[in-house]
């Protein structure tokens, strides 16, 4: 299933820009409008555009479909791991202030929130791409 050459060329050009914008939205979550959920969905949208333009099987092969669930577990592990780091630093679960006062770096709180947003973004991206590829994978094109 290969689409028209116009569609393929335009998607090839615009996919990197969508992905850069999605990363900007994720990383910009603490200082402006943005966050993990929105950026993750925007990142998944770029892969969905690739599915539509280049066909399912080729993109899945390059993406590594069986790794998608591993990515989502990695995202949750980043989030929960930061919570356990807070426990190790002597605070409550997900009390970022405990790490900040234990390490002694100023503004660490904001960086920890960025890391948490990154975990959310990875999970949302992986799960959305996995759902779409499962739902699309029905017309007998790929085994």
């Amino acid at each position, binding site marked *: 299933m290969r689409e028209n050459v116009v569609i393929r060329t335009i998607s090839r050009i615009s996919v990197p820009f969508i992905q850069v914008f999605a990363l900007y939205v994720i990383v910009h979550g603490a200082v402006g*409008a943005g966050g993990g*959920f929105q950026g993750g*969905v925007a990142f998944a949208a770029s892969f969905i555009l690739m599915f539509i333009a280049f066909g399912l099987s080729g993109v899945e092969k390059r993406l590594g479909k069986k790794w998608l669930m591993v990515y989502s577990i990695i995202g949750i592990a980043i989030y929960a791991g930061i919570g356990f780091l807070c426990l190790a630093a002597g605070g409550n679960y997900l009390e970022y202030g405990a790490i900040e006062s234990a390490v002694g770096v100023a503004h660490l709180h904001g960086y920890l929130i960025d890391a948490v947003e990154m975990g959310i973004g990875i999970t949302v991206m992986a799960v959305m791409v996995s759902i779409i590829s499962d*739902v699309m994978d029905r017309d007998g094109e790929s085994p």
Partner: protein
Amino acid sequence: MEAVLEAFLSHYNYGMAIILMMIGLYALIAKQNLVKKLIGLNIFQTAIFLFYISFADVEGGIAPIYLPEGMEAIYVNPLPHVLILTAIVVGVSVTAVGLSLIVRIYEEYGVIDEAGLLKMVKRR
């Protein structure tokens, strides 16, 4: 008359949310097709989102991101935005799970409407 119009104009957002909710609830109860039921569930969800977001609004308020030091502004209520941000993503997940259940039902029984599904289940 003036007072009734005033009351309607200051509360019309709730009215719109309730009308949208009634449309979704009717589709959820009365439609036989399972996909149409799921569309009704989505309309219902959207009504709830609009209800929450509309009561977060403040007259003349701006988005809840702090302006630079020294600039005064009225911010809208941020808490409903947070609740709805997570609810939208969960709504997408619920829709995905429901659609895949419908796909499996169609593969297993060959029907997609509620009455036919009950008949097929009873026959087995």
